[in-house]
């Protein structure tokens, strides 16, 4: 059941090189990230796990181009990141569906901005709504959906725009644990079909190991990568994996890393 991720043979899709981020200036400034580097290969699913406030979400915002880095270089698909763009789709922890648009209109928002004809948009909407199991909710408004449904549509909306990479900032953080598990399962199956490059941020270690090809363990303030661990479990993965001894051993390793570098 063990396999080794083959990142070394693949070109890197997200390249973060000695990136630093400082909030404010002078005495009161805070160094959120300090010379952080990581690479994510094409079609790879990587997860950053770390304590809250360690700067993992900030890193994602930097890659998305929604915030400006203080130093270092970020490249996505070989191109330097200077601004937000449709090549980097993102799913947020907060619900960010446009409340004035129906599910269908939300999913086709990106393609419509690009000027895609409506017949083609319809085909894409049908495909992704089927993929997330919400075909029957095409004409519902976001306010009529549950939290889990909203995040499923947010994933569909990001993928429908066919981005180079998909950035996910604790997308299931606000959901109850039952919904969370089914969302993880759904995300894995959607990912198997689309094979996008994914960088996913969470503080939930189970979630990290379950989803990832590789897990980056991050320390708090200033944020740095403590370890880059390959996850050896074969796909498709099932929830029961969390009870396997190998899984628990890996979880213990990550917990140990976080504990030793936590409160300083």
């Amino acid at each position, binding site marked *: 059941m063990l396999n080794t991720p083959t990142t070394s043979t693949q070109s890197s899709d997200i390249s973060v090189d000695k990136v630093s981020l400082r909030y404010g200036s002078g005495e009161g400034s805070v160094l959120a990230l300090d010379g952080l580097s990581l690479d994510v290969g094409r079609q790879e699913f990587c997860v950053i796990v770390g304590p809250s406030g360690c700067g993992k979400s900030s890193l994602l*915002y930097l890659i*998305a*181009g*929604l915030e400006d880095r203080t130093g270092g270089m970020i490249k996505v698909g070989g191109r330097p990141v200077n601004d*937000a*763009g*449709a090549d*980097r*789709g*993102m799913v*947020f922890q*907060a619900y*960010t569906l*446009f*409340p*004035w*648009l129906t599910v269908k209109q939300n999913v086709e*928002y*990106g393609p419509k*901005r*690009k000027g895609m004809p409506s017949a083609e948009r319809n085909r894409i909407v049908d495909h992704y709504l089927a993929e997330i199991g919400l075909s029957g909710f095409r004409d519902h*408004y*976001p*306010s009529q959906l549950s939290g889990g449904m909203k995040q499923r549509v*947010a994933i569909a*909306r*990001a993928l429908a*725009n066919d*981005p180079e990479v998909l*950035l996910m900032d604790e997308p299931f953080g606000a959901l109850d644990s039952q919904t969370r598990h089914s969302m993880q399962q759904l995300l894995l199956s959607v990912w198997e079909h689309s094979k996008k490059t994914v960088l996913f941020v969470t503080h939930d270690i189970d979630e990290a190991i379950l989803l990832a090809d590789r897990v980056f363990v991050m320390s708090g303030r200033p944020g740095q990568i403590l370890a880059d661990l390959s996850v050896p479990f074969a796909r498709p993965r099932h929830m029961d994996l969390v009870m396997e001894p190998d899984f628990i051993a890996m979880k213990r390793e990550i917990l140990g890393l976080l504990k030793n570098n936590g409160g300083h």
Partner: protein
Amino acid sequence: MTDKNLLKSLTTPYQSIPHGVVIFLGIAVWVIVLAVWVALTYGEIVKPMFLPKPHEVLDTTLALAADGTLWEHTFASTQVVIIGFVLSSIVAVPLGLTMGTYRVVQAFLDPLVNFIRYLPVTSFVPLFILWIGIGIEQRVSVIIFGIFFQQLVMIADSARSVPRDLVNASYTLGTRRRETVWHIVFPATLPNVLDVLRVTMGWAWTYLVVAELVAARSGLGYISLKAMRGFQVDVIFMAIAMIGILGLLTDQIFRLLRRFVAPWAN
């Protein structure tokens, strides 16, 4: 529902109550107001010079409606309110949204807007008469001056309260910065903007009457002033009732409009 449960729901804070009770109470308040009016006038408690009898107001209204006077002045007032309100709104909505979205616009306008906002409109009426005369332009100016800056501030506030992550999400879907106001801020604030327009429409009526009382040759405020000079308190009552009815009507129109153009926000 048993009587005990009904009593409990009526006395529980924030608890919704049966629809029938809502209608009953809505009618009841008017019945009470009219009953007090009837008692005070037919009971000879208040002199007719100060408070007219209900049937007198009705007779006067029917007479003035028949000879066209009522419609002429109602039309004159409505026209001024609509012109002033529309002129103010078509500038205040886009400018307010831009002001709430771009800090640079806010920094430029805030000091001026917040200064003017607190000046009483009534103190400018003499100045407007001096500058513009007593034509329709003067009344329109009073209305615009009265509601424009309030609209601006309230619309800018609702633009500022659009969640940042909604805007961020739109960037990651390919929205350009210069498209943000039109594609995100405008639809996101539409229900709020309509509420602001609904509220300021009511204020427009207030400022209209102020302007008409000071200087006008037509309108409901003007006939009220004329009626005061002739001790025709029934005409004043008619004018007040007419303004109330028009206000109620525009309020309902805005509510319907909101339900129609912003069906997601109920």
